[in-house]
């Protein structure tokens, strides 16, 4: 048999059932090839679906005391962060109309209790493989190969949407443009491998220090852009200063490196991403002029 789900990191499966014995049985079937998270109520499932490590698959009971599994499914499908997590209902409700309802709500599969370990394993493996393939395709299309951050293509696409959303709801939106100082010199002195590892290290740090809803992208060679939702200029400058200090402390491969950052907040009269980026770019230029390793915030 081909081991289709053999990966370096185990995929994460969230088990949701208000009967601990049922969870223990599912866990017994899956624990050798998945990382398992457990929720014993609908509300806990909704909370855990948003917390890292994010689940790759959810096994969801229907009859629960607080929120019915059907409602949990609807709420997960309506949230952009969780909408693409496949859901399998695992339930004692074995009528045809129950199954039909579950599948119509967007579940990928429906398993009735008592479960058969072989069937649960096989179906979970199939859906984890599909999820992995879907993630890989998305990763390749929308991410930068070296740093795994979003790429310029994705940034431009999502930024226009965020700008429109911010204007419509009159919520602040800020943008940080970052440039690694003297990167060419570092590449020339230490070689491209060190340079690449530096970009990867900085990218990892930016990701770790950002909120789930922030968009962190590699814009060009040594340029990064972060879109900060619901964040005004003061907040953006503070955040930028944190990134500056963190990168200064990083010293990947023992090589010191710093960031110059331009921070701007979207103005009501500004229409598009291009103008927004132009202002951020000017601010970075000023930060470089000021001697680098600093933040310039422009109104």
């Amino acid at each position, binding site marked *: 048999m081909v081991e289709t789900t053999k990966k370096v990191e185990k995929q994460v499966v969230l088990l949701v059932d208000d009967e601990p014995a049922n969870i223990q049985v599912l866990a017994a079937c899956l624990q050798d090839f998945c990382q398992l998270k*457990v929720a014993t109520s609908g509300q806990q499932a909704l909370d855990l679906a948003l917390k890292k490590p994010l689940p790759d698959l959810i096994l969801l009971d229907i009859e629960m005391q607080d929120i019915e599994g059907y409602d949990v499914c609807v709420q997960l499908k309506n949230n952009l962060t969780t909408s693409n997590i496949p859901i399998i209902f695992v339930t004692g409700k074995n009528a045809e109309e129950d199954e039909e309802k579950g599948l119509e709500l967007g579940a990928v599969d429906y398993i009735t209790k008592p479960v058969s370990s072989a069937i649960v394993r096989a179906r979970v493996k199939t859906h984890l493989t599909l999820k992995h393939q879907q993630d890989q395709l998305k990763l390749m299309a929308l991410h930068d190969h070296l740093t795994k951050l979003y790429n310029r293509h994705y940034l431009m696409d999502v930024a226009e949407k965020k700008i429109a959303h911010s204007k419509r709801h009159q919520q602040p939106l800020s943008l940080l443009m970052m440039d690694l100082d003297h990167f060419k010199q570092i590449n020339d002195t230490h070689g491209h491998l060190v340079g690449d590892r530096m970009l990867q290290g900085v990218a990892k740090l930016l990701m770790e220090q950002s909120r789930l809803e922030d968009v962190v992208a590699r814009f060009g060679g040594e340029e990064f852009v972060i879109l900060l939702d619901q964040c005004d200029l003061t907040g953006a400058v503070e955040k930028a200063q944190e990134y500056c200090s963190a990168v200064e402390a990083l010293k990947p491969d023992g090589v010191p490196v710093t960031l110059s950052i331009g921070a701007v907040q979207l103005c009501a009269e500004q229409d598009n991403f291009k103008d927004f980026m132009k202002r951020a770019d000017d601010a970075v230029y000023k930060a470089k002029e000021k001697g680098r390793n600093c933040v310039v915030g422009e109104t």
Partner: protein
Amino acid sequence: MSVEQELVCWDQNSALKRVVNQESLLVNVLTLFIEEFPEHLHVLKQSISTNDCQQAARISHAIKGVASTVSGLQLEQIAAEFELSAKQQKMDVLINKLAELEQIAALLIQQINVYLSSKIKTEHSSSFNNKMWLDCLQSLSKKLAISEYISPDELGILNSTEGQTESVKQLAKELMGQINRFENESAMLTIDHIQKELNNNG
């Protein structure tokens, strides 16, 4: 009635197969069933006495689910009958058959207990020092914080309480129960208590 008589009360082989033949996990699942069943039965009786059809259907559904999980075939069948009758608001069926359900459950629990007493290990003879205990507790704590599943095999050290104080032994037992029932917040508090005790004991 004739079909019912053909079913075995407890299908041990099918239960073991469901947990991929891992006996330690089966012990865990059966223990949970035995611990939780009295509360389910209490709720069922309450819903019958207050004529609460909705509650009776819900709890019968839950009993059916756990009974099927442990392969308690007769209990699963009668609970399914209770669920259906409650949905149809035929509470008289539940009243008339409650004694039968209790009898079936008692027999199932008896058979499971016989199995458990042959499988549950007595206290391990090996002993672990405080450093090993603290390391184990720290790793459990990390997993609990992100609601990660902890398998019964990872709790082995908590069974090996030789050389520990009575208080630590008691807390370790409580902790195992809380982890198996996924009561993560209580489990993290218990870990704090054990850590304090171990640090005090040097």
